């Protein structure tokens, strides 16, 4: 039945009518669910971005791909920091599942520098701790972690039961901080907070800002053009490639939030002169707070895609307004683009015009469209698991976003200019001057503005919708995560993980672009998809005839 409707829609228009597709997607749901999903499935319009419902609770039973606030806080934002002891306060699962499963690479400068990435620390709560409280065990665990590892900092991450049984993790952290003389701080990132990983990002941002950022005023590294890279987690070495390019241009990376990061980097992050944001969703809070407190402006950049990387470098150069830097950036781009263009020309022959779908976290579903465009591929549909409306529609909608009951309890820090250290990096006149040249701060315009007319934008896509979308559009490649991967491949569609990169990467920067072109070319043109039917399955009657003869 569904298949028949598809074909009719395709025949009438010469293309698939997204309105028909949308109707099909929601027709399967109970009425109330359908009404809600209808707001989260939007047909994109060029020129005027339609409104989408996002950052609302997941529908029970719908098979969402979302995770929780703990994953957003511990797993995403602070997990990649290599010299913290990240202690999970809860039963064993949360710590276990977030142990080395995100590919945040770390590379300490020497073999003696701390690196706790390979370790999983947990209080492994037992039933008696649930009954009598876990504070005592937490205190003892912090002490034991300190005795064995002597880390610079210990951070504590709360899991679901912690909030319910009333353990005061912040008080325990404070106590232990005084006792041990190192920084100990806690996060109330219980899994049920908010509606997704997103709540965890916000909680992590607040915590790192409150407890670490700005603690150390000594800027250790000399270097011009000091930039923090925010929301870059060094999956598969992305941050290494970005740093390589920045340094080649003469730009000094100060802190990365938080791929391959260290405690000291966070503590000195406020000495930078610019915050450049990769992942808007996870880190815009820190950027906003740093601007308010220290006067550091932020801009949105994107190092995914060679053209986007070039554009981002030029944007940074424009900000610093220095001729030498501007010239150097152009030199580097020209140098790097040689290889990029060579590979691009080669793979375009085989990839041009093919369709891609992207359903990833809160940022990559947008960024990777640039890479596909560079390959001549079209993004026919995209969506996020847990992004907010501003990531879809652009920050201009921020004033209109209402925080609903499910997310109201996520703390909003009140931040004021630091009396001694607030230093505006650009004067009001300079900002105006830049604006006149088309340079805007805090300028994220969202994913939808970049997408073509009639493409489908789907927030928190369900397993059911994923399958229907594939059946209807038969994309050449589908990008999402590990939970989606094998169901999609079973349908005969190549599936690229854009969380873990399927052990590949880096995909950021210029070298990353080349890696990505080659990887997608390999996937969409693999021979394996032509073998799905055995010879006797394609023509069984003929075989029977031979047997009779």
């Amino acid at each position, binding site marked *: 039945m569904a298949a028949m409707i598809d074909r009719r829609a395709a025949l009438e228009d010469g293309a698939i009518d997204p309105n028909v597709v949308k109707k099909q997607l929601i027709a399967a749901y109970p009425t109330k669910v359908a009404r809600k999903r209808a707001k989260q499935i939007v047909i994109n319009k060029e020129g005027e971005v339609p409104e989408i419902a996002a950052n609302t*609770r997941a529908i*029970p039973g719908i098979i969402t*791909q979302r995770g929780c606030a703990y994953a957003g806080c511990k797993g995403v934002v602070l997990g990649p920091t290599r010299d913290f002891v990240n202690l999970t306060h809860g039963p064993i699962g*949360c710590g276990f599942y977030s142990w080395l499963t995100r590919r945040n690479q770390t590379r300490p400068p020497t073999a003696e520098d701390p690196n706790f990435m390979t370790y999983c620390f947990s209080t492994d709560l037992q039933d008696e701790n649930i009954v009598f409280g876990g504070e005592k065990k937490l205190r003892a665990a912090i002490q034991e972690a300190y005795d064995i590892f002597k880390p610079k900092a210990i951070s504590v991450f709360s899991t679901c039961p912690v909030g319910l049984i009333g353990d005061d993790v912040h008080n325990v952290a404070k106590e232990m901080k005084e006792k041990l003389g190192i920084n100990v701080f806690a996060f109330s990132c219980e899994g049920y907070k908010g509606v997704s990983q997103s709540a965890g990002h916000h909680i992590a941002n607040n915590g790192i800002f409150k407890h670490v950022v700005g603690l150390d005023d000594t800027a250790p590294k000399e270097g011009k053009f000091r930039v923090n890279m925010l929301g870059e987690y060094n999956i598969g070495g992305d941050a290494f490639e970005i740093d390589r390019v920045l340094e080649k241009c003469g730009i000094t990376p100060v802190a990365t939030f938080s791929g391959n990061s260290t405690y000291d980097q966070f503590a000195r992050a406020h000495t930078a002169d610019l915050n450049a944001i990769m992942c808007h969703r996870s880190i815009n809070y820190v950027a906003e707070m740093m601007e308010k407190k220290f006067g550091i402006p932020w801009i949105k950049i994107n190092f995914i895609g060679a053209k986007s990387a070039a554009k981002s470098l030029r944007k940074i150069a424009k900000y610093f307004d220095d001729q030498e830097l501007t010239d150097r950036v152009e030199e580097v781009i020209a140098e790097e683009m040689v290889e990029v263009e060579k590979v691009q020309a080669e793979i375009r022959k085989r990839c041009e015009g093919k369709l891609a779908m992207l359903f990833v976290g809160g940022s990559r579903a947008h960024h990777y469209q640039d890479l596909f465009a560079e390959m001549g591929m079209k993004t026919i549909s995209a969506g996020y698991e847990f992004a907010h409306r501003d990531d879809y529609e652009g920050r201009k909608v921020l004033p209109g976003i209402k925080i609903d009951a499910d997310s109201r309890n996520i703390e909003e820090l009140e931040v004021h200019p630091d009396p001694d250290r607030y230093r505006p990096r650009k004067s009001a006149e300079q900002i105006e001057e830049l604006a006149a040249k088309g340079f805007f701060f805090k300028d994220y315009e969202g994913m939808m503005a970049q997408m073509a007319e009639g493409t489908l934008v789907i927030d928190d896509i369900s397993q059911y919708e994923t399958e229907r979308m594939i059946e209807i559009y038969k994309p050449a490649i589908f990008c999402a995560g*590990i939970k989606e991967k094998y169901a999609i491949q079973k349908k005969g569609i190549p599936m690229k993980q854009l969380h873990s990169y399927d052990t590949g990467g880096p995909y950021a920067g210029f070298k990353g672009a080349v890696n990505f072109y080659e990887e997608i070319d390999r996937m969409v043109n693999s021979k394996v998809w032509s073998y799905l039917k055995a010879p006797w399955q394609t023509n069984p009657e003929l075989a029977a005839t031979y047997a009779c003869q």
Partner: protein
Amino acid sequence: MLLRHTPKEITERSALTINPAKTCQPIGAMYAALGINRCLPHSHGSQGCCAYHRSALTRHYKEPVMASTSSFTEGASVFGGQANLIQAIDTIFTVYDPDVIAVHTTCLSETIGDDIPQIARKAEAEGKIPKGKFVIHANTPSYVGSHVTGFANMTKAMVNYFSASNGKRSEQINIIPGYVEPADMEEIRRIAGQLGIRTVIFPDTSNVLNRPQTGKFEMYPKGGVTVRALVSTGDSKATVALGSTASWPAARALDVKCNVHCELLELPIGLTATDSFIDTLRTVAGVSVPDSINIERGRLLDIITDMHQYFYHKKVGLVGDPDQLVSLTEFLVSIDMWPIHIVTGSPGKAFDTKIREITREIPHPVNIKAGGDMFLFHQWIKNDPVDLMMGNTYLKYIARDEDIPFIRCGFPILDRIGHSYFPTVGYMGGIRLLEKILDALLDRKDRDSPEESFELVM
């Protein structure tokens, strides 16, 4: 060094777990529920658990792992998850149409005390459960036991909800295979088939988590024990339960509920454990053992005699789940290897007693810990190195740092394939284990031998 902060000196830890050798209950329950035909596992908690469990199983099997969740929000966490579960049941049956929803819980819903049967009854009264469809449940608090406990609880739930007796005993034998791989379940079925025994194996994840690429995704693949077969377990002649931690609670429940005689055995890994599995099957079913099985046994023995010099007195470190470790330790001891460091993350006193008994004749100190972790295991290795390690993928960090040959077995294996296709149970599984052990040891010998003693024939 990947684990550069692990000191050789062992200090007592009472509160801090580092690099666990277990995970939490619900993933075991999810795995067991996937062993029911046309069943959708459902996680009653906040959605992060479900995402983690699906991801972990997916990484281990490289297969789709479907499960739904109640997606608790803060409100539900305080006031109870009834509305969430009822809405979930409605959505699931409407959209995904399983025959069974198998609900397990998390530390969240257990701490707040949600009453799942009461909620399911309410859903039924509201007409949310279609006729002929089922909602079953197991309580799986993450702060008790481990993933193996969760598996045991969901397997027991299959008995609680389905097993029924019509008063007539059949010739059928129930086999509860324990927390083993789909390939192991398949092998157990093959062995029973060779003996000519009619069996119900539950749970059964073969053809669910090792399914073929056909160009079609089926939400509910062909494998899994059917509801009808589960109902019939109440009339079976006997139950053979493999692995006390994973299988005993269900077997005992079936005995209590339907008076089905039960034989509890260790997992049939290695020579002697497989011997007693086959001997027990033969006895309870009243059949004789065919020559094909004798041939397999003889082949396993033959390899042991042929290659014994390479195993003899080699020291081994083991990390894993209790049922596997008991049989594996026994197998290694039976071929004159020395398992000397043995850690399971799952708590339980019986483990220590059993392993102590199996290893009592090893003339070397043996470290055993139930409820231990890989950090402690690593420290033991630093103090008393071994020739071989066996355990899940997380051991590879120790293997690289300490330069020790390493065989992947148990859960999870995230970086290799094979475990879902080739069994380690039965005589054939024993042969595979020996092949792996020999490959690891002989590769190392080849790597380390001086040129003059680099051997062509080994």
